[in-house]
């Protein structure tokens, strides 16, 4: 395993561990505090399993008051805190720290209110993404963002990571579908932001909190907007002789004024792996496969399906199939949805990347990725949210071969740098976490990161909440708090640049 530089533990905290555990147990009695190694083991990592660390203690609060008292205690005693939802983060956002309390929100699992006329649902943060849709399905409603982990991931985690999903091209990310939150600040103060209305007065704190990766506060309640499910959804399965042709088809669909509910692309290695695994009927003789889903009123979807089909044929599609019923539509998706486990059969381990690029750069990026694959001697399979340019290359490696993980990580870094180079970004939906924090300098200069730090310091000026995430380590602004690096006149010029 590669060594990950995390903030040096507060030795004082480590020495006072039993005292801190006792204080926390007084706030959250019963089984709300876990401090033995066996009990803490399940919490040592999140979805980014390459890194593990036991926390100082695990705390599972049940009430807002307990969250507030835990945070106030930690604030007063300079104890770091790492919040955690379901632990499905792919960027290590919930990776524990040796000297930090892991605040696990899984007991906040109740749906508090369903308000159909105002189209809002109020839930506790531990409720899973899918549970919201299930709770309103009897009246034909659903919650739109659908990250692939939706069966397990919590809405609190979705807020922290601004989670997306295959349908966000048309329906937006978490940030576009959350109306309000109740949040506890690091000093224990409880704030309510937004509500069952479309705007919040004053600064847009809601916009700042969504996607803040647990560095600004601990969310204790979320109000989301729900939508009525479309009358019908239909999908096209389209095969192309080259990724260029598939990319051109995507561009032409958008240029025709059509915004599909989802538009997914897979490259040849991903197609073959998925077909071998799921037998979804994918063509084996194409270089790129597109799944285009259109949803909406009956009168509209039929019209648009025909238009997309024509655009595909104009772009040399060698395989065209239109779903005739729900069963067939589900089958089209089956391969794509099973793509991760399918690729998992190709190699002992894979490393999932998450950059976004301008769509038109796709052929160039795919070509460059194939070259990198040869240089590193590691295979790569590509899945791509083609509509919005979000790439998910899966790098294949074997962690038992010494040096392969490091090689996979270096390959991954090169891919993300490539994304930035062509005008894209480091992460489309998985978050920065620990995984990409040291690449932030590829996208942002010191002043850019310095201003992000100003936001952090307004919420948590002691830097106790989820340290070591999102911001580069050894970043000169990382420990500044309210002080600001001003035009290069920095207090510690000997700290190396990242």
């Amino acid at each position: 395993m590669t060594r990950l530089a995390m903030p040096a533990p507060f030795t004082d905290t480590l020495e006072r561990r039993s005292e801190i555990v006792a204080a926390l147990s007084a706030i959250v009695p019963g089984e709300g505090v876990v401090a033995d190694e066996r009990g803490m083991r399940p919490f040592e990592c999140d979805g980014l399993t390459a890194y593990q660390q036991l926390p100082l203690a695990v705390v599972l609060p049940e009430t807002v008051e307990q969250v507030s008292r835990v945070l106030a205690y930690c604030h007063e005693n300079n104890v770091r805190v790492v919040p955690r939802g379901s632990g499905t983060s792919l960027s290590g956002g919930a990776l524990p720290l040796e000297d930090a309390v892991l605040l696990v929100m899984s007991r906040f699992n109740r749906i508090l209110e369903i308000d159909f006329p105002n189209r809002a649902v109020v839930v506790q943060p531990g409720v899973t993404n899918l549970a919201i849709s299930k709770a309103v399905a009897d009246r034909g409603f659903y919650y739109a963002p659908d990250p692939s982990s939706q069966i397990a991931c919590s809405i609190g985690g979705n807020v922290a990571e601004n989670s997306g999903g295959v349908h966000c091209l048309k329906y937006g990310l978490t940030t576009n579908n959350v109306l309000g939150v109740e949040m506890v600040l690091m000093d224990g103060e409880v704030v309510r932001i937004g509500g069952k209305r479309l705007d919040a007065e004053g600064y847009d704190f809601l916009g700042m909190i969504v996607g803040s990766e647990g560095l600004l506060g601990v969310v204790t309640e979320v109000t989301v907007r729900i939508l009525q499910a479309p009358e019908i959804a239909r999908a096209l399965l389209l095969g192309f002789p080259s990724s260029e042709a598939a990319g051109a088809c995507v561009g032409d669909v958008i240029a025709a004024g059509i915004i599909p509910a989802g538009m997914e692309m897979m490259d040849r290695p991903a197609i073959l792996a998925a077909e071998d695994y799921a037998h979804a009927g994918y063509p084996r003789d194409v270089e790129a496969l597109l799944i285009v889903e259109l949803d909406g009123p009956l009168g509209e979807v039929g019209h648009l399906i025909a238009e997309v089909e024509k655009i595909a044929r104009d772009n040399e599609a060698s395989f065209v199939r239109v779903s005739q019923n729900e069963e067939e539509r589900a089958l089209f998706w089956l391969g794509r949805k099973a793509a991760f486990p399918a690729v998992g059969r190709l190699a002992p381990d894979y490393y999932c990347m998450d950059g976004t690029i301008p769509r038109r750069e796709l052929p160039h990026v795919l070509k460059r990725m194939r070259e990198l694959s040869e240089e590193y001697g590691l295979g790569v399979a590509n899945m791509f949210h083609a509509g919005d340019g979000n790439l998910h290359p899966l790098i294949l490696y074997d962690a038992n071969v010494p040096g392969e993980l490091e090689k996979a990580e270096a390959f991954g870094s090169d891919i993300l740098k490539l994304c930035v180079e062509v005008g894209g970004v480091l992460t489309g939906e998985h978050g920065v976490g620990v995984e990409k924090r040291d690449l932030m300098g590829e996208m942002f200069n010191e002043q850019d990161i310095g201003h992000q730090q100003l936001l952090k310091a307004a919420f948590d000026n002691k830097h106790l909440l989820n340290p070591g995430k999102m911001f580069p380590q050894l970043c000169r602004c990382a420990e500044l708090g309210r002080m600001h690096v001003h035009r290069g006149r920095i207090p510690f010029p000997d700290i190396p640049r990242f």
Partner: protein
Amino acid sequence: MAVLRPENEEEVVRVLLERYERGSPVAVVGSGGKSGWGETVAAEDSLDLSGLSGVTLYEPNELVLSARAGTPLSMIETLLAENDQELAFEPMDAAPLFGGASGQATLGGTLAANVSGPRRIKAGAARDHVLGIRAVSGWGELFKSGGRVVKNVTGYDLSRGLSGSWGTLAVFTEITLKVLPKAPDSATLVVLGLNDAAGVDLLCAAMGSPWEVSSAAHVPAALSANLPVDLGAGGRALTLMRLEGVGPSVDYRAEKLRALAGDLEAVLVADTESRALWRHLRDASFFAGGQGALWRLSLPPLGGPRVVNSLKAAGSFRHFYDWSGGLLWLASEPGSEEALAALMRGTVEREGGYATLVRRGTTSADVPAFHPQAPALAALARNLRQNFDPKNILNPGRMG
């Protein structure tokens, strides 16, 4: 009183750096159309951004456009229209509410105020369409946030976070937006004669249907005659539901919506007239050129009619609802300004909303323009302001 008019980003940095060092504030101005919205800025000099103009990137197939902050929206909208695209959040043109000319608004001012139109309920607000920004903070330092792609969670979303901050945290110099295809066709189903509560109930039912209503407004009888299109409503209230999309889809959904409205009397307004109606509602044009107090309430949709009922006892006013009832524009009649102001905040808070005094009229200066925040939130806002503008040089006093 000096007007500083930088021509480029470097000059904005230079001006603000110099202001930072002297601790000398400026009023940040685009075209000045919304200068009357919010509190008066405590600064002698102004920073006029109209010199930072021009579209710097437009790739229709990537659905992305970048422009300098002082670029007139009209220029952007014309360019987009040539490619059958638009700004889906339908930015409001607020200047006529303050006696200004229409069509002058800048991109920077639009985002600084986060003003969105009727389609906001389906397409999102101005801030939902910002992909990236370049800005200069009160430190006189240039920084960027976001990027040019839709799907991006790299770092804090400062682009979104600075939207609606009224130039008090940083001055935008360049903005990158998501643009969208313009619907080729539209229509509006107008139901006649409903009272406020029934009208808003119908709007909520329509928004909760699968018929993809893109805007939903209710205009009570007192204002219905002032619309630019004669609907033959004979002075009755109007409940309006807009449908946009390809022709066959609009027709199909119009039939479905009619069925939803049941036996209620309704007329279907076709594309051109529909656009004129929503433009009028977008700009709250009923109240353009007026002088009296004008309130803008944001609240859960069903709460609107209840707020109106509670306020009726205190004074007289004219009002209409947008956003399915969740946005309530309310203009005090002369003589009722103080009485309404006294009740306003408490009444709207009980319904889970807030109220902005958009145009003060003769309302006492003691009534804050922006809704007072809970103490913990106000403290957070102070921290943020202190961190981004430590010497209070950007629009001091604008947000109270």
